[in-house]
């Protein structure tokens, strides 16, 4: 366990070095946040039907999405791992005295964490200071905030477990780009990145609820604005844990299988 912790820590510090990239990313995300909110405001402004989600919670939803983008994006990828597999250097990884699954998990976790730490605070700060209707509101109660923090972290673990599956699939496909793109487009849609899950039509919401993706983003963000009441949030945490266990189980099993047939790509 200590080894994985230190891998995690090293990667985290490494990730913190890319500050100018983070600055550019922040500018982009602020801009996108603005555009999305303007679009939603325009839709809401003359709407005659009651909206399923009040505008302030929607605004908080959008800003949280932008601030914690690296917790959600599936195409946030580590080319190193792809190259390890397709280039044959996986042989060295196999020689290490630690489990590959845990090792990669720690690595991916740290990358996402460092990227989010660099970006989220400035974006949130700006979002809190903006004038209405762009201003991001505070959560309704301290309990909601605490639950948000827990669900967000669990969501992070879930997304890392999902992305592990993508990496493991490279053992069979050998070409990451295509399958990765399909996977991430579909996954991000069902995580509520294109339109928030409550705004989807009913049948599509049911699909989204049946998939693991919404537990990574949609769920914590709605807990934040109190859209999901606390009792329900506690049940949600249980579901998150179940998904996490299932995804890790499948991941470890398929990695185990992949490694038994692993072909070292020479070069």
């Amino acid at each position, binding site marked *: 366990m200590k080894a994985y912790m230190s891998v995690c820590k090293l990667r985290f510090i490494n990730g913190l070095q890319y500050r100018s990239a983070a600055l550019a990313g922040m500018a982009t995300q602020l801009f996108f946040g603005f555009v999305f909110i303007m679009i939603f405001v325009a839709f809401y402004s*003359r709407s005659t039907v009651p909206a399923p989600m009040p505008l302030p919670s929607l605004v908080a939803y959008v800003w949280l999405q932008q601030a914690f983008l690296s917790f959600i994006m599936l195409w946030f990828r580590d080319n190193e791992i792809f190259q390890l597999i397709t280039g044959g250097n996986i042989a060295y990884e196999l020689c290490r005295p630690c489990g590959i699954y845990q090792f990669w998990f720690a690595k991916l976790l740290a990358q996402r964490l460092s990227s989010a730490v660099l970006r989220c605070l400035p974006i949130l700060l700006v979002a809190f200071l903006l004038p209405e209707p762009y201003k991001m509101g505070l959560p309704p109660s301290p309990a909601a905030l605490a639950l948000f923090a827990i669900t967000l972290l669990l969501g992070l673990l879930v997304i890392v477990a999902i992305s592990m599956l993508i990496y493991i699939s490279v053992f069979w496909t050998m070409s990451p780009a295509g399958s990765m793109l399909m996977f991430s487009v579909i996954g991000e849609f069902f995580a509520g990145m294109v339109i928030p899950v409550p705004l989807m039509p009913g049948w599509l919401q049911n699909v989204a609820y049946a998939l693991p993706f919404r537990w990574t983003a949609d769920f914590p963000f709605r807990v934040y604005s109190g859209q999901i009441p606390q009792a329900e949030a506690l049940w949600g945490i249980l579901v998150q844990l179940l998904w996490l266990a299932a995804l890790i189980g499948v991941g470890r099993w398929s990695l185990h299988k992949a490694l038994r047939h692993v072909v070292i790509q020479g070069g």
Partner: protein
Amino acid sequence: MRLYFKYLSILFRSQMQYRASFWLLTCGQFFSPFVMFAGVYFMFERFGQLRGWSFYEVALCFAVIQMAFSLSECFARGFDAFSGLVAGGDFDRLLVRPRSTALQVLGSKFEFTRFGRLLQSIIVLVWALTNLPVAWNAAKAVTLVMMVASGVLIFTGIYMLAATLCFWTIQGLEVANIFTDGGREMAQYPLNIYQKWVTVFFTFIIPFGCANYLPLLYILDKADGHEVMYMLAPFAGALFLLPCLLVWQIGVRHYRSTGS
């Protein structure tokens, strides 16, 4: 021009060497604007209208900008990958050849997989056109074609500007994504739904509005007076490329090789 097509055929043959990956990427490229469009569709299904714009009108707006974006990504990708050329010092080789640098960079890369994205936007365009009650005439058809062309030129101009910055910074700059991806994202809705400053910025500084919003008013008969002005807006958008070319020339003159 012949040289450019020569570049294209070489690149096409090289990309077709990886067939499976090529088709998967093309499919993926088809799907990513597809879910975007699904988002627009579901929003309209729930809210019915958007500040007086109907779904098919917005779909037309969406199709034009997506089409322009995918075409420009196809053809002008070379500028997007330009930082690699500068950082590696490979730009020196282009300079000693007796052809224009802009043309050579343009031909250095070509993403055929973007046809997936193009196909999707063509489908949306046809769908929107068949459902819109527009009295078509020659002038409107020409305007529509001009809108796409003007959009391509604007995106190309932005790519060029971003590439020019590489002469000074050596690295690629992600900030340019605000104007390419961000511009695409916002121009897929009619510009007048945004705040005033956004509309002004994207009409007069980076003229996306000239490429789809203003001429769209003409096509949909929403323009009040000055129809010719709205019709000619795409040309104004195309003018954006001129200062970009100029800046590019200045950049090339300032170029210092990294020597590696």
